[in-house]
């Protein structure tokens, strides 16, 4: 059976979270860039869907991350209504969020290329 990845820190154990946190930020930014403004649950669902259910992000991880990105000025959150007419908080990329995404993506690509070269070349 395929392994399921869980990005989360249900308690405040931060052991391996640092690396994963950086990835989560990138995933959130990318998702919002691709789909436009979304609320928190939509972001999780999208991540699950894209990963084929391998990636589960719980609230204790997602919302602090959203808050952090908002505090850094990469996102802006505002209350709105969903298609089903429910009140939800939507997150949208800001201009500096878009710039950050581009930067992070390049860094990721470079890293991935290095890893690939390393793993294959050996």
């Amino acid at each position, binding site marked *: 059976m395929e392994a399921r990845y869980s990005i989360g820190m249900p308690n*405040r154990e931060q052991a391996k979270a640092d690396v994963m946190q950086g990835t989560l930020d990138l995933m959130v930014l990318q998702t919002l860039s691709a789909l436009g403004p979304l609320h928190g649950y939509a972001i999780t669902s999208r991540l699950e869907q894209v990963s084929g259910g391998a990636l589960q992000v*719980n*609230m*204790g991880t997602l919302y*602090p991350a959203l*808050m952090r990105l908002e505090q850094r000025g990469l996102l802006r959150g505002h209350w709105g209504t969903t298609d089903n007419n429910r009140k939800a*908080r939507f997150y949208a990329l800001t201009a500096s969020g878009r710039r950050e995404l581009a930067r992070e993506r390049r860094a990721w690509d470079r890293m991935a290329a290095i890893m690939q070269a390393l793993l294959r070349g050996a």
Partner: protein
Amino acid sequence: MRTLREWTHRLGGALSRGRGDRDLEEELKLHLDLAAEDARGGGRPPDEAARAARIRSGGVLQAMDALRDQRSVPWLEHCAGDLRLAFRTLRRHPGFSAVVVLTLGFGMAINTATFSLVNAVLIRPLGFREPERLVALHEHLGLEAGPFSPPDFLDLERDQQSFEGVAAYANVAFELSGQGEPIRLDVAKVSANLFQVLGVGPILGRTFTAEEDRPGANVAVLGWGLWQSRYGEDPSIVGRRITLDRQPYTIIGVMPAAFEFPRRGPPTNNKPAAVWVPMAFTNAERQGRGSQYNRGVVARLREGVTLDQAAGELAVLASRINANYPAELREAKISVRLSARSLREEIAGRIERPLWLLMGAVGLVLLVTCANVANLVLSRVASRTREIAVRTALGSSRGRLLQLLLAEAAVLSAAGTLAGILASRLIVGAIPATMGRALPGVRDLSIDPRVLAFTAAIGIATSIFFALVPAMAIDWRVPGAALQEEVSRSTPGRRRHRLQAGLVVSTVTLAVVLLVGAGLFVRSFSALLATDAGFNPDRVLTASLTLPRAGYGTAASVRAFHRALFTRASSLPGVRSAALVTDLPLESYEHRVLSAEDLGQAATTTASTNLSWVYGPYFPTLGIVVRSGRVFSEVESDQSRNVVVVNDRLARTFWPGQDAVGKRIRWGLDIAGNNNPWLTIVGVIADVVDGPLGAEPLMHAYEPFSQFSDDVLDNFPGAFGRHVKLAIRTDADPRAFASGLRAEIGVIDRQLAIESMATMADRVGDVVAPRRFSVMTLGGFATGSLLLAAIGVYGLLAFNVAERRREMAVRLALGARPSVILRMVVGDGLRLVSIGLAAGTLASYGVARAVGSLLYQTKSHDLVTFGTVPIVLVLVTLTACALPAYRASRVAPIVSLRGD
């Protein structure tokens, strides 16, 4: 950058709480709802769907915790809570808190006040541009570094390469008349380039041009203080005429408020001027080689030139200057050396050591207060053992407990610091009045940001100390142990006891050091007061005047004034005798080289002799003892008979073991060109102190004013010979004669300003004021720390006794006599005291050696001091032991059976 932004948000969140909890919870709830809906969409029943949603999404509570942490700065939130808690706890113990705050406040106050002194005198910039390049230049005749003679300064100015500029200055006193009462002003005659050398410009108008630096230019630059007080900050003052010494001067500029020059501190030319006028050397001054060594010189080093390089050039210049001296001066082996030192050292050098000493003393007092407060805090920890144990059991980490202790310590220290700063303002306000004249820079003594930073730093250090001390006392290994009541009562933390005993011992040690230090200075001061100054200051009133050249241009007018003042003052009812003199005891006026008749090689010394000019019965008026011969007669007061009275020192220097009466001396070197008349010694008087009290008496000669040169009074510019000090010996309180004397002076010359009027006793008091101040403060510090040490001993014993009540009761019940208990408790106290005493005596021996050079006629191992201190200490601490010991011996045996 982005992280910075995040943290500003977080800090903002900590203060304003950011997005509210409700807002966050709502968002999480929606998340769960949507997750549950999805699960129901998958065909599960509602409650199972909700469970699945929770498993998938995690708990709301955990998410909220993580969100709260992200929203703000967690430890900051804890901090605020801890501080609130600490504040509440301390308010519940007002007695404890008040004692701590007052003790700490005392230590903080004297430290803040003393540091503000150090700051003003030693640290604060001088207020000149690039002060590190400013140097003071000196000319040495013999060993002592002193001011310059004008021709030598002019040589230096012409030839030097090391300096951007050199400027001469000299203090004079001028009469300012015109509107209102005439007043005497401290004025400085300065080279035109002085302001450029110092690098300070005027706020109004301009300073002197080189052309104005010549006799007759009569222009003046005003100081800010005078401009404000006398001219109401009139912005159109430039161009106005004022009358200085009855001569018209044109004001050309006003200097800023912060500009002060000359500075207090150096031995001469040290009076901050209210007005500056050009130096304007006269021809006589330019050519007066080998005389008038009285011009201060300040210079600015060229960029890149070091003090050493400049000193090298000065050595070369000195030899050139020596070559310019006339042959007869060179024959007499008169030679000069030049030297340079930084201006800062020139101003503050003499006060630096005493000031750091004072700072050291208050530092010790602060340590004593800290040790005492730490002791109090420790006693409180004992009663909180259980609280701390409960907190630990409930899961508080050691770090969180420390944070709590730190918060309490911080609240205490902050209150103490605040109290200290407030109190120090009072102390600082009182300092200039006591010793303003003695200290450079005291005019603007203030608690500025640097002083506040210093105090705050101490405050932070003390709060860490007060947090760590109880932390050290807590036994962290067995948190639960304290919960067991019996255990907590019968073993009262040995660790804490050792700490407390250590603190008390160090308090005693420090107190001993301070007591010995203060004792040495008290001994030194009383030795100083007990020295025979050579005159009797009781019931003597003095007045200082200077006759302005414009009103008293001729010798005849000066002499007429002398006669009139002498006659009027002598005939005041209640006045026994009156006399005029150029300089009273504790002052000096004129220094000359003399030679004695028929003594061959021994006839001259390079040491200079003080010369005073007297009119009337000066010696009886001041109560100066005549050793042999007689004083001047009435006839000699008015007619020159070439007579002189000398002091013991002079007589012994030239005629050791002989009577000097009848011998002859004359001014100047024993060389062919000397045309000064021979003067016959008619009397020898006791040595009178010319400088500060305790200074070695110098050779001193007194001539009747009738022998003063008419030519100088008629033709020489300046005030030389026009200074008059009047002294009257009275029948009753001399103060009562002040108004009568003023009136008589007014009758002779209504315009004449009286510089000062003071009893001779007050003049003596002024001279010793700085020393009296340091003795009193040191004494106060030592007494304070002795009391603190006693309180520490008392506190520790009282606490121990309270803790061991049951043990005492058991002992008494088993038949121990109360006197045994008494002796036991007192013995405990004395053991601590004797350890402290031994350590303190050793330490103070080192301190005493360090301050030895500041003492007057007192050895650094003064037996009286080292003998008295232990006795006083033991007596005081014994008193402190008495009460707890008495209480212990009176514990009712029944206590042994009772619980808490």
